[in-house]
């Protein structure tokens, strides 16, 4: 579906400016539309598409919104996660341990077994193994068992479980340093604060990276290992635009089932830095 046709979908048609452009929107706008019209997709489902997967957005807790996806979209979205993992550093035969819900894209894009119709996920493509631990605080103890016996090279943690996991590590006297090469932290919408990941990086003596997510737009970017204030955006997947001081909107090039135009990223204070070359990742820098 072209951008102009996408703009005729009910959600977008209701928010066109005088020049016929879609006004940037946030998740709350979508929730409000979904509730008002009784449409689980919030007026974004393309009429010629039948979603293979309908994903309930984690961040849409009060008013549920679903995102319709097809195989190609799932694969493209997993490309964004792949870029982040590659930059954080993974090697063939590594195991990545995930401590988050299976409904989080930080989990289900990781392996083709975690969600139907993805086909091959990041781990399948990079020759990795994955192990997932359900993202509830009471499962922190099992995460220690994973560390002891599975010996993952990297951990992806839901922000909610950072504190209980840290406490469990401390109680057990287990050090992450020397066991894992990196940790990445994720939350349903936005990115964990840098000061928090820095604190854990100091505590654990392991690089702690961040994931920036906007699931409503199938958007995902990992922080730059060399400059944790910056998020590197995979080339070709998204169109980014600065829409005001510290504000960025994203349009998702691969979203067809529920096209995503001009979604305002919730993390405040993001400046857009274009990549020097066409195939270089763009950067979103926290100011």
């Amino acid at each position: 579906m072209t951008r102009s046709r996408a703009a005729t979908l009910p959600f977008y048609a209701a928010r066109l400016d005088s020049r016929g452009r879609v006004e940037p929107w946030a998740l709350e706008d979508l929730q409000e539309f979904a509730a008002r019209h009784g449409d689980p997709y919030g007026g974004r489902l393309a009429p010629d598409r039948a979603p293979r997967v309908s994903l309930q957005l984690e961040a849409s807790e009060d008013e549920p919104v679903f995102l319709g996806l097809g195989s190609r979209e799932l694969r493209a979205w997993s490309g964004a996660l792949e870029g982040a993992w590659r930059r954080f550093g993974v090697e063939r035969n590594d195991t990545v341990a995930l401590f988050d819900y299976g409904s989080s894209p930080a989990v289900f894009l990781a392996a083709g077994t975690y969600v139907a119709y993805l086909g091959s996920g990041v781990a399948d493509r990079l020759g990795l193994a994955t192990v997932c631990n359900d993202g509830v605080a009471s499962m922190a103890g099992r995460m220690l068992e994973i560390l002891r016996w599975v010996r993952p090279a990297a951990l992806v943690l839901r922000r909610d479980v950072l504190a209980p996991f840290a406490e469990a590590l401390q109680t057990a006297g287990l050090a992450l340093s020397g066991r894992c090469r990196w940790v990445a932290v994720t939350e349903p919408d936005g990115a964990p604060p840098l000061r928090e990941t820095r604190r854990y990086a100091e505590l654990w003596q392991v690089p702690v990276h961040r994931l920036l997510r906007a699931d409503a737009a199938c958007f995902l970017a990992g922080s730059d290992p060399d400059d944790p204030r910056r998020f590197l955006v995979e080339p070709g997947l998204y169109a980014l635009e600065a829409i005001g001081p510290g504000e960025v909107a994203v349009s998702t090039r691969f979203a067809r089932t529920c096209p995503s135009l001009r979604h305002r990223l919730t993390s405040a204070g993001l400046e857009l830095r274009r990549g020097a070359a066409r195939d270089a990742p763009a950067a979103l820098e926290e100011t």
Partner: protein
Amino acid sequence: MSARAARVDPRLRTEPFDALDRRTPAGLEAFWRRRLREVLAIAWEEMPFHRRRFEAAGFHPSQLRTLGDLARVPLFDKTAVLAEQRRLGRFDVGLERASGDPGMVLSSSSGTRGTTFLAHPPRWRRVQGRSALRAHWWAGLRPGTRFLLSAPAWHSYAAVQTWIAERLELPCVVVAGTYLPRFAGRIVEALLAFRPRFVTMFLPMVFSLVSEARRRGLAPREAFASVEIITVAGAPITPGMRDALRRETGVQRFVEIAGSTESLLAVECRAERGLHVVPDTCYVEVLDPRSGGPAAPGTRGRAVHTCLVPWGSTYLRYDGGDAGVRDDSPCPCGLPSPRIKLLGRAEDAFRLGELELLPYDVQLAVEESAPALAGTPCLVLREGLAEGRLELVMPRPETGYAPGLDDALAQALRTRFGAPAEVRFVESLPLLFKGVPPVLSARDLQTSGGAHR
């Protein structure tokens, strides 16, 4: 297994998934003999954990000529895997095949007695997926049905569930969160938005969904209006629970599935007389704990299974700690596979007077004595048992409660079990990771959040 042909009731007939479902019981035995020989031979060649066990018992796979010969393969349980895990310092203890394949996912066992890990390479997923598809077919899943996933990626079921969805081209709904009561609202939202026909659910969660529907001012029947079949797993369903859920939700088919991460799989047919062993996933024995031999049909024993998918972690004659019964009599649904019913964890068994009981027995007694309490979870206090007394703690039912119900129920339980009994209603029980724990000490009850009066 009886070689008698089953008398098939056309109303209960299970539409066969493939030729394996059309075999006679004798034909199925032949299939099992062949598969067991193949799997044991692979284990001998490629799985050092099993080869050591075979050698120690003086067993070689070529010696397996009848299903009875399987008894020569020594049993093992989780403690053996945990010990080997500690000895080697790693999860893969030598009962895995192709665990180095790219794209492998690991799942973990439930952590009540320590955590073990199971390797699921892509080849496992294909073979296990097809067998699990058979189980879902028996349960009534058909192409095109909208499929509600609660996305527990940590569980081995997640891996086959997605495979099944792809094969049957099922549109999937991924619900945010996990199988915990606090996510019941999200599941209800998905039920209302997508109106699925077929739902798979952890049994205690179904009760949470009923409560959540009510909390939203909906009759549970409204929330489940489109649902024709719910498969329930994770705990044995009692007849009273099933009736109560049917009444509450309006869903006519509650299909019990018994599954374990270590590849035990059995599913109920329409006849509801036990769960048919899924024959290309596993072979199941129920053993008398005293003699170690097969328990008489219908008599309780330990469920021991042998996985027949020789990819990834392959558990052979594994005692998973479940108490159960096996029934080889012909089933009116026409499926040749014997039926089992798992009744709970053997470690939860307790003595009361002259009786050896499981929490399942208490649940049955409760619902037969007080039908209004069918489906209400109950918890047995360990301290009471130590004094030879049944001390039951239950949440006050949302409907059907009348003053004096506790005394009346206690009296009925005293009569039934011939032992002192007390019943205490509370506002709610602590909900641990897998629902309400059936036997708990008062101290555990306190530390896990306590019963709220």
